[in-house]
């Protein structure tokens, strides 16, 4: 069994009004050093296969075809073995 941890972010070219609103809130907390906030999604998949390669293939396919929309989002993932 493997655990795929998938991170989905808005593509750099796309404005993130939600992130902007949160940035203002962070600033009003007094943290003037924060320059930018971008909001994304985090998704975990438990994948029942024998090898890491197979788990990576499935995670990549699920992210590319469903979990992220390539028109507006990028994704990265890592796979770890569950004991």
């Amino acid at each position, binding site marked *: 069994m493997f655990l795929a941890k998938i991170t989905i972010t808005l593509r750099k070219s796309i404005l993130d009004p939600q992130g902007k*609103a949160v940035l203002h809130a962070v600033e009003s907390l007094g943290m003037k050093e924060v320059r930018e906030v971008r909001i994304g999604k985090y998704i975990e998949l438990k994948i029942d296969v024998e090898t890491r390669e197979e788990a990576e293939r499935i995670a990549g396919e699920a992210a590319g075809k469903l979990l992220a929309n390539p028109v*507006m989002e990028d994704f990265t993932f890592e796979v770890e073995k569950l004991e």
Partner: protein
Amino acid sequence: MRKVKFGVVVFPGSNCDHDAYYMLKHVLGQEAVFLWHKNSSLEDADAVVLPGGFSYGDYLRCGAIARFSPIMKEVIAFAKGGGVVIGICNGFQILCEAGLLPGALLKNERLRFVCEFVHLRVENAATRFTSECRPREVIKIPIAHGEGNYFADSAALRQLEQNERILFRYSSPGGMITPESNPNGSVSNIAGIMNSGGNVMGLMPHPERASDPALGFTDGQKIFNSVIKSLMTRNRLNEALSVERS
């Protein structure tokens, strides 16, 4: 003469399906059937409507899960074969997710759900979806969405522009395309587009909510009447051809 038969797809979470059905059947006098999302048949509909709503609770992304409903296989094959498909609001989002239309619909720029009447300028009146409008006519139709901020990358946008596939833009009542008349941040004020084949249309505004004379607004009828007219012409031609053959 045979009426035009519309199939209105019902996803779990659709909530404008009855509006579309009522308007097509009882206001415009055509035939309409509901198509449950688990069906694998379009029941010989001449045109398919993907209605507004919150299919699958907008989980993951608007339209992302509905796009994998069993009936979408049929809708995609139908569209690829030239069948007429109309996506309204959530239906537009589903068509983008399914890859039948380019681009995507992001959260409204000001992050608010917007429910109000807007003015739309008809950018191309020479399509089967807009033939009942005058070129550059301004029509008044309501919107109701939180994620209607149309986005397409510059290459896709150029293609839409060059092939006159942008059908409606948010405008002032006088037909000016201004930032003030853009309710959601859509690129180039885009409210509705069609595919390169001219048979698939998606739009965020709700023409079915501005079609019943009892409500006082009927501009939405122009869009459906355009489609009905084009399908009636096609059906008549097909009938004439089959008579000739037999």
